[in-house]
């Protein structure tokens, strides 16, 4: 079974990102970039399935400018076998990404496509669902466990109030939640090996997709700074403030 994993290049989760002064976008100049944490979980799951003998090949794909190859190389160092980079300078949005992934899935005949449930920059939570719809295949989102058996994927989903286990016929799309696994660290020998693994570069045009964005970002701003608290003299004063100033009770 061939597994396709999509990874996104985002600002490192430990970096505190600021909005640009003109509010047009997040300021990513000189910011450490990394694989989106949910995508890293997707890579780990695919590699584990390969180590269990369930998968025969793990192909990792990323889209964006040339710098995305860093994240593909990292995924290869984590155990993926081959990389595909869709090179474009266009600011990609979920629909365009899903269309291009669909074209790659068709070409690669992947039986399982694993994506992060969302990226920590866009927070859209759309690409996996759109891909499943475009490809006309089942989807198991927010997965906390994936078991492949008898040509089906049993996916345990984290839903409000509990867990739901569903069975998907393959091919299928799975999007990962935080608790699916704990990604490994790349070892130094594997980092060296990753440089020798194949990485194909294609363009959106090669995939027959126009990546032009349909959504325009109007403004990006930082969350309002938390105001300093106050010390109240009594419970009565607290209740009064909650009722009349904060109006929360």
């Amino acid at each position, binding site marked *: 079974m061939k597994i396709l994993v999509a990874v996104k290049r985002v600002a490192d989760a430990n970096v505190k990102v600021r909005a640009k002064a003109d509010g047009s976008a997040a300021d990513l100049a000189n910011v450490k970039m990394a694989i989106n944490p949910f995508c890293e979980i997707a890579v780990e799951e695919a590699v584990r399935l390969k180590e269990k003998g369930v998968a025969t090949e793990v192909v990792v794909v990323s889209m964006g400018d040339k710098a995305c190859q860093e994240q593909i*190389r990292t995924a290869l160092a984590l155990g993926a076998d081959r990389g595909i980079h869709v090179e474009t300078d266009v600011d990609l949005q979920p629909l365009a990404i899903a269309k291009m992934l669909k074209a790659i899935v068709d070409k690669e005949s992947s039986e399982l496509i694993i994506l992060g449930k969302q990226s920590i920059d866009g927070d859209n939570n759309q690409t996996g669902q759109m891909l499943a719809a475009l490809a006309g295949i089942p989807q198991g989102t927010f997965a906390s466990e994936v078991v492949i058996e008898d040509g089906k994927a049993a996916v345990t989903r984290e839903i409000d109030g509990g867990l739901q286990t569903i069975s998907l016929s393959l091919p299928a799309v799975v999007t990962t939640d935080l608790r699916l696994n704990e990604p490994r*660290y*790349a*070892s*130094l*020998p*594997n*980092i*060296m090996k990753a*440089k020798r693994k194949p990485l194909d570069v294609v363009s959106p045009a090669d995939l027959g997709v126009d990546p032009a964005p349909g959504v325009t970002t109007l403004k990006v701003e930082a969350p309002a700074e938390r105001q300093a608290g106050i010390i109240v003299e009594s419970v009565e004063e607290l209740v009064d403030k909650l009722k009349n100033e904060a109006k929360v009770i």
Partner: protein
Amino acid sequence: MDFTFTEDQLLFKESVADFLRNEITPEKIRELWDSETGRSDALWTQLAELGLTGMTVPEEFGGLGMNELDFVLLAQECGYVALPEPLVHNVLVAVPTLIACNNDKLKKQWLPKIADGSAKVSVGLEENFLVEDAHVADLLILQSGDELHAISKDAVSLRYNQSIDLSRKLYAVEWTPSAATCIASGDEGKAQIEAIMNRGALACAAQALGLAQRMIEMSVQYTSERHQFGKPIGSFQAVKHHMSNIAVRLEYAKAPVHRAAYAIANGQSTASLNVSHAKLVSTEAADLAAKNCMQVHGAMGYTWEVDLHIFMKKAWAFNSTWGDVAFHKMRVADYIFADDAPLGAGNTFLA
């Protein structure tokens, strides 16, 4: 001439930094202080799985066959987290000592085990009086005059000596040299002992850079959060000066450390001079960082509860081990005051 690190070296650094910064937290270090050996077998296994223990072990013995320059940035990262495990000592001191010794049996017996993480080796020189991590070493390489001896852990008795840095485990080792344990003597022994001193000093120098960096970052964060007179205290000039003085000292210490690693890796004749220069400036930077960072913390940096002391005390320990300030200043002086000293711009990159 390209002085920059290669893409691979930077990638290794980033990857190892991710691991160390996630796994070696101050809480983990405090936890290890309370353990019996002060060391973690699980952590050592992880370091071996990442390929770190075998970095300088030749490929024929199961390692990665890399050199001191490949490891120097990683050693800085080990300093940044104040790694208690003897990784830097094994990679930079023990493995090259085993490789240099003219004893194939010893190499075959120990290098594969070091690479796969199943053995540790401690090297002790008389200059240091005490031996680091002798309690967890499977093999000890010890100096006796101009000789080096390889001693099994069963043939020594150890007496613990507490260091100011609780993560450092120092032991006085009682042992008896014999012809059977001797692995180098005479001129070869002297040369090896000097090489070991250089490697040990480089290990301290590289880690001192990481320690200084960490102390600056901790203090910048603290002075950005601590408010006085309605402003973060880091906005006051007197505090800024404390921090920027360290940053300047640290920046100027990096190149000598990298130069020293290059000199050792390439067997240059100036290695001893380069190493002494590196150790002097990097431990000075770490020492200044310890002093100024404690000041900007309002002296509470020295208290048990604030993590700063973990890094500060390690910096103090590095200052006086593997050759103290006087030792290294003397080596630099011996070089530059010699009648035929090749000084001047034309000799800057003399090999």
